[in-house]
């Protein structure tokens, strides 16, 4: 079996019974395909997908839209893609800033990939769908998020064995901090600065549990009120990337997560210095 046979088998997949050579695309169509698949990859990288998923999705997009093969390089803030069809190929790279986590967008891209592979959409249809997906905002009212994040952090304090007084203090500390975080995020401050400032606010409010002797274990409020800042998705993605062999993205995501944890610690240290509360 030569290389082209292997490629054809992989690109068309086993669920497609009409295996045969694809008609070669001209350069204009290739430009369209590369644009669309790169757009899908960009949305995934921006909103917190792991590297293996990004690679697979771009590959499935491109081959379902008529290319023979895609070569993909996912690096921490750049994606480079080459589309190949017959003798023709085109290459494009795009810079991708990280914009936090949005699992609805990742889910929507996943469904779109399935629809393209089943042949339900042509290139114009894919473009309008991607346009719609890229405009998806949060489903949840910001106040609902504030309350639920507050509840999540105070639930963590209960998991650590805190009493109801600490539960209440943690709730106020982390929901106020979440409000501050949303505002700072809206003003486009640097992400590490946002984390430090938010941890500081949470730390100062949570210190009241110690200052007013509200509980025998007041330090738990301090430890749990900043948990909404913990970079859970970068941490998990980092290890997943390392396991699947995407070393560069894995290491970089790990460093970003480490820096965010450092920023949390810095914010807490500042808060403890101000209020004179010690111990965690």
């Amino acid at each position, binding site marked *: 079996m030569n*290389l082209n046979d*292997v*490629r054809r088998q*992989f690109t068309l997949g086993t669920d497609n019974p009409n295996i045969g050579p694809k008609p070669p695309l001209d350069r204009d169509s290739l430009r369209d395909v590369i644009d669309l698949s790169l757009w899908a990859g960009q949305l995934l990288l921006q909103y*917190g*997908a*792991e590297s293996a*998923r990004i690679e697979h999705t771009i590959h499935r997009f491109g081959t379902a839209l008529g290319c023979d093969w895609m070569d993909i390089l996912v690096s921490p803030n750049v994606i480079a893609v080459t589309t190949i069809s017959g003798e023709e190929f085109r290459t494009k790279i795009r810079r991708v800033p990280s914009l936090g*986590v*949005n*699992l*609805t*967008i*990742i*889910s929507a891209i*996943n*469904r779109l990939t399935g629809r393209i592979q089943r042949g339900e959409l042509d290139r114009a249809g894919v473009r309008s769908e991607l346009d719609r997906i890229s405009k998806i905002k*949060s*489903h*949840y009212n910001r106040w*609902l*998020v504030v309350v*639920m*994040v*507050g*509840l*999540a*952090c105070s*639930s*963590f304090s*209960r*998991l*650590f064995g805190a009493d109801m007084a600490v539960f209440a203090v943690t709730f106020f500390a982390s929901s106020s901090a979440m409000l501050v975080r949303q505002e700072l995020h809206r003003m486009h401050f640097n992400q590490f600065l946002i984390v430090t400032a938010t941890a500081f606010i949470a730390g100062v409010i949570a210190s009241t549990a110690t200052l007013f002797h509200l509980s025998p274990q007041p330090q738990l409020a301090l*430890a*749990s009120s*900043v*948990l*909404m800042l*913990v970079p*859970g*998705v970068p*941490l*998990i993605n*980092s*290890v*997943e990337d390392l*396991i*699947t062999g995407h070393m560069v993205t894995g290491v970089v995501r790990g460093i970003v*997560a*480490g820096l965010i*944890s*450092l920023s*949390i*610690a*810095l914010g*807490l*240290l500042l808060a403890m210095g101000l209020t004179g509360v010690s111990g*965690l």
Partner: protein
Amino acid sequence: MIDLGLILQDALWSALAATGFALLFNVPVRTVIGCAFLGAVGHALRTTLMQLGMSVEAGTLAGATVVGFIGVVFAHRWNTPPTVYTISGAIPMVPGSLAFRAMLGVLRLTATTSDTAAVMMAEVFINATKTGLILAAIAVGIAAPSLLFVRQKPIV
């Protein structure tokens, strides 16, 4: 030996924690209940196993593996990638406070003298290693379905 009431409480608080983070990550509305359920199952299983004498790392691996497999089932049922369920379900197990405790220890090293520094260094190192191991357990656990069943021959 196992306190059922305690486990149920644990499940309730973990479900709340998972829901809060699911909203923060803007999961599709139809998946919120599944995320809460997985958060409860993963963390409650870990707590149960730890009460039976297992280490936190091994318990996390077991909890995350169960989350990974149920996540795949839910993903088929509600037509999303498993990531939506597994990430939100694993969040209650993420060693957040260990991670920034390690960092806090690093920052505090500057204020110590050399005779107390050794103890603090050891503390930092223990916390950092534990964080790493628990994270590895989470990632391997939620990737377990694809590691075990979706194997592919390398192409080209």
